[in-house]
């Protein structure tokens, strides 16, 4: 479990995270939702120690994040950021190889190669393995980074808007894959989602944020109501029940 208490973060005099108290549960898909600028990416960055928090505490499985070495952290959580770029010109398969760095430190063994190959297959990248990253479409690159995080084989997967750029098929297969990792490999997933229908269909838990604060949090089935969501996004959202599945109607 990731416990976040009294977490605040400000930069240039602007309060970006404002007293966050919440927890993210193990063995669940938790959707982090909320309007643009709510602070979702910043919260994910704070958990991944990419932004240095000003006050507050983050505990992972009871251990203060500050006391975890970077090496251990890399085995504990894998992060796929919202904006993806790498400094060097590398191939897809090499990127996945870097995912094994926390385990193999550059000396890839047969086990690592097996994991890399299966990650390539999982994310439909086998045909693209020798392409350079800058020769890929946005969605393909996104999948390459997701596959790298998969190869990292960490307990926690933190994904920031992974459905960006993905077509219907790959978006759905990503969510199914995340579900499978949670149920079969006891992984835990925290994912920033903008599409409410994906949230309703796949998330076990929801943490909803606005203006750097948590507005509501809890199991999807209880907290995802038409009123709560409409209030969160400040726009009318209707929930329709179709054969027991809920769908959000907000397009018009």
């Amino acid at each position, binding site marked *: 479990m990731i416990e976040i208490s009294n977490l605040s973060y400000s930069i240039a005099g602007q309060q970006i995270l404002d007293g966050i108290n919440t927890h993210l549960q193990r063995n669940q898909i938790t959707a982090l939702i909320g309007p643009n600028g709510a602070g979702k990416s910043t919260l994910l960055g704070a958990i991944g120690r990419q932004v240095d928090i000003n006050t507050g505490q983050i505990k992972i499985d009871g251990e203060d994040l500050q006391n975890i070495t*970077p090496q251990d952290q890399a085995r504990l959580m894998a992060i796929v950021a919202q904006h993806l770029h790498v400094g060097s010109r590398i191939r897809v398969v090499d990127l996945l190889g*870097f995912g094994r760095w926390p385990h193999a430190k*550059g000396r890839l063994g047969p086990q690592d190669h097996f994991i890399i190959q299966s990650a390539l297959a999982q994310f439909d990248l086998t045909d693209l393995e020798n392409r350079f990253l800058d020769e890929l479409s946005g969605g393909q690159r996104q999948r390459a980074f997701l596959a790298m995080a998969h190869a990292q084989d960490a307990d926690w997967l933190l994904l920031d808007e992974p459905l960006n750029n993905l077509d219907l098929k790959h978006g759905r297969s990503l969510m199914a894959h995340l579900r499978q990792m949670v149920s079969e490999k006891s992984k835990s997933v925290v994912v920033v989602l903008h599409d409410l229908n994906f949230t309703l269909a796949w998330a076990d838990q929801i943490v909803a944020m606005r203006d750097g604060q948590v507005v509501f949090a809890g199991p999807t089935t209880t907290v995802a109501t038409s009123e709560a969501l409409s209030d969160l996004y400040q726009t009318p959202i209707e929930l329709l029940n179709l054969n027991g599945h809920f769908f959000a109607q907000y397009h018009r």
Partner: protein
Amino acid sequence: MSDAVSPSRPLARLNPLKDQRLWALGVALLGASALFVFWGGAWRSAYILELRVVKLAGLLCVGSAIGVATVLFQTLTNNRILTPTIMGFDALFLLMKTILVFVAGVLALPVLGATPTFLADTTVMILATLAIFAAVLRRARHDIQLLVLVGVIFGLLFRTLAGFLQRLLDPSQFAIVQADMFATFSGMDQRSLAVAAMVMACFFLWLASRYAVLDVMALGRDQARALGVPYDRLQLQILAAIAALVSVSTALVGPLAFLGLLVTALTHALMRSHRHGLLLPAASLISCLILVVGQTVFERVFSLNSSLAVVIEFCGGLLFLFLLARGHIK
């Protein structure tokens, strides 16, 4: 997926000793060195031989220092057009050296020998680099245009300050500084060369165990840290290494702004790899090759002793403009 032998294949085990391109470069360098030393029947005179061997050693030191420093710098800054000299590292070295000479003069310290002077210069240079560039790099890392601007302005500032201090020096002190102010490949001091070679050997040994983590650092700070790499600590260490290597080359031959750029452009074109286990040796071999071949041609064929630096700078400068115009920042 069948063969995993050629190192250019992704994910293959990296073994620089199996790379044919590196071997070819090594053999070419060996040939060029032999030509440089023995040209015109030099084996008949032990005196000439010794002179030439010392000079060759100097060229090799400077070549590998510039090649390695530039690759490291480009890895830290995530770009392929900046070099330590374009960013004012050499100007900083000259400033530090001028300050040391100036302070020694004011305090009437006894003139030190070449070795302690060189070590003092290098140490001060490393400290100054860490203080200045670490602070600047941390803020401007993501903005290459800002980085270039800052580097150019700092370079100008260092040069101006050094120039001002140099006016205050007496002629004999000035002569000490002047030796490092212009790039020349003649008159390298034998003892500073030995010290320089030792300093470099230490850094290269240190680097030899870190080439794989450099590949991860090249992904960028966030990615590298997410993979468990202690990026900030390594960055400081590598900056110190760059500062020392620039000190070596500036102390031995003077500032060479564009050689590094020429070298890394050729290295990337030849190796087509992101792996530092290949890039670092290739860059130092190519850099040495350019210097040795160039010096042989200019000194032996054209009998022009001082033109090599000018030609290298001209070619490198053109390449710099070309890369800028093409927008080749990565």
